[in-house]
């Protein structure tokens, strides 16, 4: 019977350590989500074009009271900042749509921002060529997401008031 108690305690300890690591700031890695994004918090810059040289950033939202962070694509156009998900049916995208307050970590620096989903076709025509060129290595004279077929979504990111 003692072995059973020890096994249960070991499993509980591992689960607790896992939860602390996940939500306590281990951070997201590739496809694996994480928790709190640690880093120096700075005021957002007026021009985000420096992110053109950055492939991926981390985005922190929350699931209930728990922090939830993921790695995703970052896009800038005319100095504005956008984040994108290849598939919109994700935990984090739904959470951001429910609560636009996000924390972004870019090159180790944390920015506290608001993210709103973009449905404007004019913005789509600005962002689709950026997606193609930045991530696919395909230059385009013009590009637009096909309405009703695209599975991804784009969020415009702005400073909190």
């Amino acid at each position, binding site marked *: 019977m003692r072995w059973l108690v020890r096994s249960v305690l070991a499993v509980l300890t591992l689960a607790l350590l896992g939860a602390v690591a996940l939500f306590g700031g281990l951070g997201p890695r590739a496809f694996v989500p994480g928790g709190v994004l640690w880093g120096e918090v700075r005021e957002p810059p007026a021009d985000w074009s420096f992110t053109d040289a950055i492939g991926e950033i981390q985005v922190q939202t929350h699931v209930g009271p728990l922090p939830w962070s993921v790695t995703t694509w970052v896009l800038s156009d005319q100095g504005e900042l956008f984040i994108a998900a290849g598939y919109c049916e994700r935990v984090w995208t739904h959470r951001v749509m429910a609560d636009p307050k996000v924390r972004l970590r870019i090159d180790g620096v944390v920015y506290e921002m608001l993210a709103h989903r973009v449905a404007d076709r004019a913005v789509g025509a600005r962002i*689709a060529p950026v997606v193609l060129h930045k991530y696919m290595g395909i230059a385009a004279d013009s*590009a637009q997401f096909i309405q009703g077929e695209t599975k991804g979504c784009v969020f415009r990111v702005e400073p909190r008031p």
Partner: protein
Amino acid sequence: MRPGALVLCLALACSAPLEGELVSEPVADWSFLAGAGDVALATASGRRFRTVQAKPFVHGGALYLQVSTILPASDAALDELRAGAELRLRAQGRVHPLRAIELTTGAEIDPILPTLVRETLAIEATGLRWDPEPARYPGTQIRQWFFRLEPAAG
């Protein structure tokens, strides 16, 4: 296959050739593939693409393959394909033996880009050009390989 062996096989990611009716005659127009439902790919040795995404698509009736990944790791099936191994594609229960010709230049890749971005990204675009190392976006591109798929010789 016994259940234990199947579990062990899955755990070890073992390879097995695709099963199905082998098609010997070449396909003139692959357009049927768009509505073919489940399509499976493996090299002739049975190796599957595991760490990369392999997406076949049809352009002008001909068959192409885009392989992509955001991971730095290599993929054994991709390595085999680039080294000249034959590919097997199964659609509608029929297995097609194919050879893959890698496309590397803009002249080869540019013509298929409109179909590629429409089929795989749901983006309609004009004036598309293969530009794998754009100065404005240094080092942010996913890793990609393109192949034209033709009937295997013999």
